[in-house]
């Protein structure tokens, strides 16, 4: 397995505020790696370090085999950055922005023009091509920003919260583009606040919190770290609820909703046995459902510490 990003011990502090406390990160070539973390976790800081914009206090990294610190120019040739805040020239038009960036990528004139036309069409900006970007809606600006990143297929694409502020349709559109890029072999480092986004797109997910990576794995692996399937039982009255809490050793309880959640392996045998037990104990049950842990649960469980 080759790794497009290979970082060890990246550390960054501002004064005595430790933002990144020795981050190790390996992103497999051709995969989508997602950094998940609450506000202020250091996602943008990590992206800026890996994109040659910010100097780490210590630690090293290679990007597509090039050393981040000693050969930033080689790194810049293979990356493309879509930052958290739109990186477009608001005084210029959409078309001028794209053409400028294509020229800075040193595309031959004709090819540059062609690429601009394709991208305007692909990102639904044809009608707005001659308008100043300053007059764009947030979603349009985001689309232009992404289009600029796609001018030349990079080896590694950084997407720092690419769909924040987009409506669901535009979000789907961006996801489609990301999937297409992955099919083209682009490696993607994605940060996001939307767990669904990581679930949808990422091959691997790292949860960043308090300056460290507190968990890493596939979405399924992360979900299994906080337990498997649960059977959620809503009781009809407080008395039954009390007994359920006492006898069923539930993983989670909610007195207000009179619900308990009991771990199962999800097999019919175990569920039938559990239901038989409810019957035997004579609990007044209103409703039974199965719940799968979501990435949200993982996120909340893992980042509880900092929120507390």
């Amino acid at each position, binding site marked *: 397995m080759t790794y497009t990003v290979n970082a060890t011990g990246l550390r960054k502090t501002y004064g005595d505020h430790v933002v990144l406390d020795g981050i190790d990160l390996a992103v497999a070539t051709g995969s989508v790696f997602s950094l998940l973390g609450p506000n202020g976790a250091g996602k943008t800081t990590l992206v800026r370090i890996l994109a040659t914009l910010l*100097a780490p206090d210590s630690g090293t990294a290679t990007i597509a085999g090039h050393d981040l610190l000693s050969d930033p120019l080689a790194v810049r040739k293979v990356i493309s950055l879509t930052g958290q805040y739109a990186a*477009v*020239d608001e005084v*210029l038009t959409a078309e*001028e922005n794209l053409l400028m960036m294509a020229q800075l990528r040193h595309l031959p004139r004709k090819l540059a023009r062609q690429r601009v036309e394709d991208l305007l069409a692909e990102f639904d900006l044809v009608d707005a091509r001659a308008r100043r970007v300053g007059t764009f809606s947030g979603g349009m600006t985001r689309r232009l920003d992404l289009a600029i990143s796609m001018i030349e297929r990079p080896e590694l694409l950084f997407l720092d919260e690419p769909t924040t502020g987009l409506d669901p349709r535009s979000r789907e559109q961006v996801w489609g583009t990301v999937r297409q890029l992955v099919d083209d072999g682009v490696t993607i480092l994605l940060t996001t606040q939307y767990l669904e986004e990581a679930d949808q797109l990422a091959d691997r997910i790292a949860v960043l919190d308090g300056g460290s990576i507190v968990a890493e794995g596939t979405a399924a692996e992360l979900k299994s770290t906080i337990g498997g399937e649960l059977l959620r039982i809503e009781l009809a009255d407080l008395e039954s609820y009390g007994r359920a809490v006492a006898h069923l050793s539930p993983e989670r309880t909610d007195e207000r909703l009179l619900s308990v959640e009991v771990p199962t392996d999800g097999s019919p045998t175990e569920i039938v046995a559990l239901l038989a037990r409810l019957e035997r104990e004579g609990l007044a049950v209103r409703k039974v459902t199965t719940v799968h842990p979501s990435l949200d649960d993982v996120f909340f469980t893992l980042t509880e510490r900092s929120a507390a």
Partner: protein
Amino acid sequence: MTLSTAVLDSRVMVTRSVRRSFRDPEAFFTALMLPVILMLLFVYVFGGAMNTGGDYVNYVVPGLLLLCAGFGAGTTSVSVAQDMSNGIVDRFRSMPIHGSSVMVGHIVASVVRNLIATALVIGVALLVGWRPTASPLDWIASIGVVLLFVLAISWLAATAGLLLGSPEAANGFSMILMFLPYVSTAFVPADTMPSWMRGFAEHQPLTPVIETLRGLWMGTPIDHQAWIAAAWCVGILAVSVPAASSLFGRRTSR
């Protein structure tokens, strides 16, 4: 990174910055109005009270020119700082483009703006009675001096914009640039000032540039002022050009 890509990148950035200059109608209008208003103010309002020997307009043109150049450079400083506080510079800096090309764009746009303002100052001055005695050769030399000065002050302003980072701070810097001509020989001879101020006025960089231009246009003595002016400009360039490129290209620690 080859020379040809540096030229290519710079050309793209020049197009960008020049376009941006002309799309900010408010700033552009101010830059055009300023020379006209200042000229009328100094010649018709203050001029009557000034005693500089001969028509005041013949004395004041180089100073007004530098005042306008200071204003123009202030604009440059602010627009560089604006760039630095915007996401687009992060994108530029994460691309394999030549470190100084973004600055070159700003500088060329700055020089273009300043030359337009210079032409306006000269045009308005001629209209209100400026009568230079310069020979064609003097004119060519004076254009060279103006170009060199505008170039130096533009790089200086761009460097300041990079260092200061925020448009507000850059605005403060441009105030200094606008103020500097008043404590030079731009509007009154230095020997009319109290001695401590006179020392500053005689030794600050604007004075030799003003004296050189005045000498070329009006035939007043230049002496060694031309060399001092050139030394200041070249010195400022020698510091600002590499400083700006490295400030722009380096990884920030913040």
